[in-house]
């Protein structure tokens, strides 16, 4: 039996308060697990807001991640830019093509491998804190701390020269800016691909012991495929953690009791990181999947070809899964949140991200125990215009 359908909604973007998802998402989640949604190209697909249903669709092989099938939830330009299939963009491939790439990479991102990076990440973090001290109070936490730490780490892991960071940070910012024109997006993506392709060719001639050289040596991927993988890992490796570090700090500064608790007891870092991931859900606009065949979900008939948006932020605030979900509590067990996604495409670098944050937040609070915002909280500019949520700048004083 299928259920009567409410009128299609559009994906809400405007937030009433900076740290909470748009309130409509929560209202709709309370009314039902999914509802029809009008996409930017006129397509009528679906929007899923409940935790269990989000997980079920993300784990369901009847739903594809393939780029050529998806309808854009917002902004037609996303479709134009994304529609071009590019080798190595395995995030947008289904099995068995996806499996071929993921299998080559998972061994590089295991819990143990990432733990081995801890001393190096601690050193990088402490050097950035030295730089902040040298720059003097007040300073922008994004430029001096949140962005350089994960950029330095992913550069070392991949074997990308950090000296080129202005270039790839600029291109990835253009890619993630929802206001970029299709031309700007293509240019940035082409620029990044040219840069990394040259680098892959160089690795073939002069290998090092980092990840890209390892992929070259594996002999299982073409240079074009390795370039695609490098683009994904480089962008995903710095933009996401950078925004969690900065937005997480902003959140703690707005919750001084919890900031003090974490500062005075660094053993809270593990639960604090999971809770900040859950509470903030910086991947705030997706992901999107498309039905490969007719599929019934929670009694609703989804037709082959219809796209489905999985609202991770609404799922992470589902009261059926998390008690008092709108309350930040860094001592709760928030594991099981869907901030890294779910299913076969769940974030490859999640264990690295966790370690960067578990080291980053306590080190920052230890170095600057009296850290405070240098401007009024409501004047901090939020990244509502970017595919990854966060703060554009975070002026802090100590």
């Amino acid at each position, binding site marked *: 039996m299928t259920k009567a359908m409410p009128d299609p909604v559009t994906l809400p973007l405007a937030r009433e308060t900076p740290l909470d998802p748009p309130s409509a998402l929560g209202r709709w989640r309370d009314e039902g697990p999914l509802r029809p949604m009008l996409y930017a190209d006129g397509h009528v697909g679906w929007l899923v807001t409940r935790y269990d249903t989000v997980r079920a669709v993300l784990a369901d092989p009847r739903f594809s991640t393939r780029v050529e099938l998806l309808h854009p939830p917002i902004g037609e330009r996303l479709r134009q830019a994304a529609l071009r299939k590019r080798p190595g963009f395995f995030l947008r491939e289904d099995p068995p093509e996806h499996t071929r790439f993921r299998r080559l990479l*998972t061994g590089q991102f*295991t819990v143990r491998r990432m733990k081995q990076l801890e001393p190096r990440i601690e050193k990088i973090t402490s050097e950035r804190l030295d730089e902040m001290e040298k720059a003097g109070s007040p300073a922008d936490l994004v430029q001096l701390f949140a962005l350089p730490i994960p950029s330095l780490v992913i550069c070392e892991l991949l074997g990308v020269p950090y000296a080129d960071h202005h270039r790839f940070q600029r291109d990835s910012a253009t890619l993630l800016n929802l206001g970029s024109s299709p031309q700007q997006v293509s240019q940035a993506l082409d620029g990044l691909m040219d840069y990394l392709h040259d680098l892959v060719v160089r690795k073939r001639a002069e290998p090092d012991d980092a990840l890209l050289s390892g992929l070259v040596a594996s002999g299982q991927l073409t240079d074009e495929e390795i370039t695609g993988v490098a683009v994904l890992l480089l962008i995903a490796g710095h933009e996401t953690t950078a925004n969690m570090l900065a937005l997480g700090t902003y959140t703690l500064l707005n919750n001084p009791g919890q900031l003090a608790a974490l500062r005075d007891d660094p053993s809270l870092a593990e639960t604090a990181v999971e809770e900040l991931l859950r509470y903030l859900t910086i991947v705030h606009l997706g992901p999107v999947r498309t039905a490969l065949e007719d599929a019934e979900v929670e009694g609703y008939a989804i037709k082959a070809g219809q796209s489905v948006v999985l609202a991770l932020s609404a799922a992470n605030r589902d009261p059926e899964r998390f008690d008092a979900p709108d309350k930040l509590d860094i001592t709760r067990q928030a594991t099981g949140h869907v901030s890294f996604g779910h299913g076969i495409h769940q974030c490859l670098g999640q264990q690295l991200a966790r370690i960067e944050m578990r080291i980053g937040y306590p080190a920052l609070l230890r170095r600057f125990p009296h850290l405070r915002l240098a401007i009024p909280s409501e004047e901090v500019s939020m990244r509502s215009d970017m595919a990854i949520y966060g703060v554009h700048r975070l002026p802090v004083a100590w």
Partner: protein
Amino acid sequence: MRIKADTDVCIGAGMCVLTAPKVFDQSEEDGTVLLLEPEPSADQEAAVRRAVQVCPSGALSVS
């Protein structure tokens, strides 16, 4: 309790290792799940059930 792990389905996300490190490990080669204790002791059962629940790929089951 007996754990079954399907390494063909596993995507190596590492959630099981994070949740129950005494029971699960990951292969050095491809990051897929390794069972350190296929029949975990009673004190590990709760953690194992959590690991089954958070596994993103559905590679784990218990009987």
